[in-house]
């Protein structure tokens, strides 16, 4: 069963769980690594009709050479944060709502006395009349005179003024 998982893994056909098991076994057991090498060799032998290079085995030689090499360590890649699963995914939203609620409560508490003072006179304001009466225009004195003579001017109200200006101008130039 262990090697059947390994065989599927070599073919890229193992699922995540089996793949993780195989990786652990490869890291810990030399016999599993040897079986893995053997499976790769069989594949190369079947794909290569002339079977060139099948006898090559550089692994031990290269691993010996790497003994003196410092272990390579790549900087950890920055992993994109994904949305949290389950009930945890509501925590950011709940925190935001709670923050807004606290801010609203504080602002209402601070403004509450001022609003009450402003609201009191509003409460006793006189009710607006539902049926307003028409406004009566009071006319008397000079206004009555102007109204009465408005009709005697020529055309628009500006006409009387223009006539006055012309008369005064004629007198000053001696035309009359």
């Amino acid at each position, binding site marked *: 069963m262990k*090697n*059947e998982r390994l*065989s*599927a*893994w070599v*073919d*890229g*056909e*193992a*699922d*995540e769980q089996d*793949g993780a098991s195989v*990786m652990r076994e*490869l*890291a810990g057991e*030399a016999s599993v*690594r*040897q*079986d*893995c*090498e*053997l*499976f*790769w*060799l*069989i*594949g*190369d*032998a*079947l*794909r*290569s*009709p*002339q*079977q*060139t*290079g*099948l*006898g*090559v*085995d*550089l*692994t*031990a*030689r*290269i*691993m*010996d*050479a*790497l003994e003196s*090499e410092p*272990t*390579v*360590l*790549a*900087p950890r890649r920055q992993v994109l944060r994904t949305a949290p699963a389950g009930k945890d995914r509501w925590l950011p939203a709940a925190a935001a709502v709670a923050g807004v609620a606290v801010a609203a409560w504080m602002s209402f508490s601070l403004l509450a006395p001022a609003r009450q003072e402003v609201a009191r006179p509003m409460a006793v304001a006189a009710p607006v009349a539902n049926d307003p009466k028409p406004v009566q225009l009071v006319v008397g004195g000079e206004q009555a005179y102007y109204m009465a003579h408005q009709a005697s001017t020529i055309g628009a109200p500006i006409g009387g003024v223009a006539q006055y200006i012309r008369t005064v101008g004629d007198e000053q130039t001696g035309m009359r």
Partner: protein
Amino acid sequence: MSDREIDQQLVERVQRGDKQAFGLLVSKYQRKLVRLLSRMIRDPAEVEDVAQEAFIKAYRALPNFRGESAFYTWLYRIGVNTAKNYLVSQGRRAPTSTEVEAEDAEQYESGELLRDNDTPERLMQTRQIGETVNAAMQALPEELRTAIVLREIEGLSYDEIASMMDCPIGTVRSRIFRAREAIAERLRPMLDVAPDKRW
């Protein structure tokens, strides 16, 4: 989990300090790399030296490998550059890019263009491995042989093989494994490695 994902997992293990994971990448790609370099360098001993140097360069450069390309494409590019530099240092002409391209490396699988320039010992072992694999294949029951041929030579997925052989995927997985085990059984005595030589 695809083949490329497997390589990426191994690369990430190396990047976290696991040297054995690099050994697996060497095991997987050494033959392909050697075949590629054989197109550029005639002497098999030199090919192996250059292949080793390429793998060590790849190991040193792995912290910067981000997986934008497949690991083998990246490795082959290092291999080709290492071979060119080697030939220049020896005062020999390096092949032009049209003669050897890392991207074409997969097409070298057939080995048709390769020179048979191995040492006698290496040739003998290569021949023995080939004959053993062929003999084991001939001895396999028909359904196991078909399953492994469809996988290893035709490159079909388990799903496709299940459709072609009209059987569940689990059966395909089992048949391919049993085929490999039968072939491996015959190869093990030939490749038996002394415990102190294991990595």
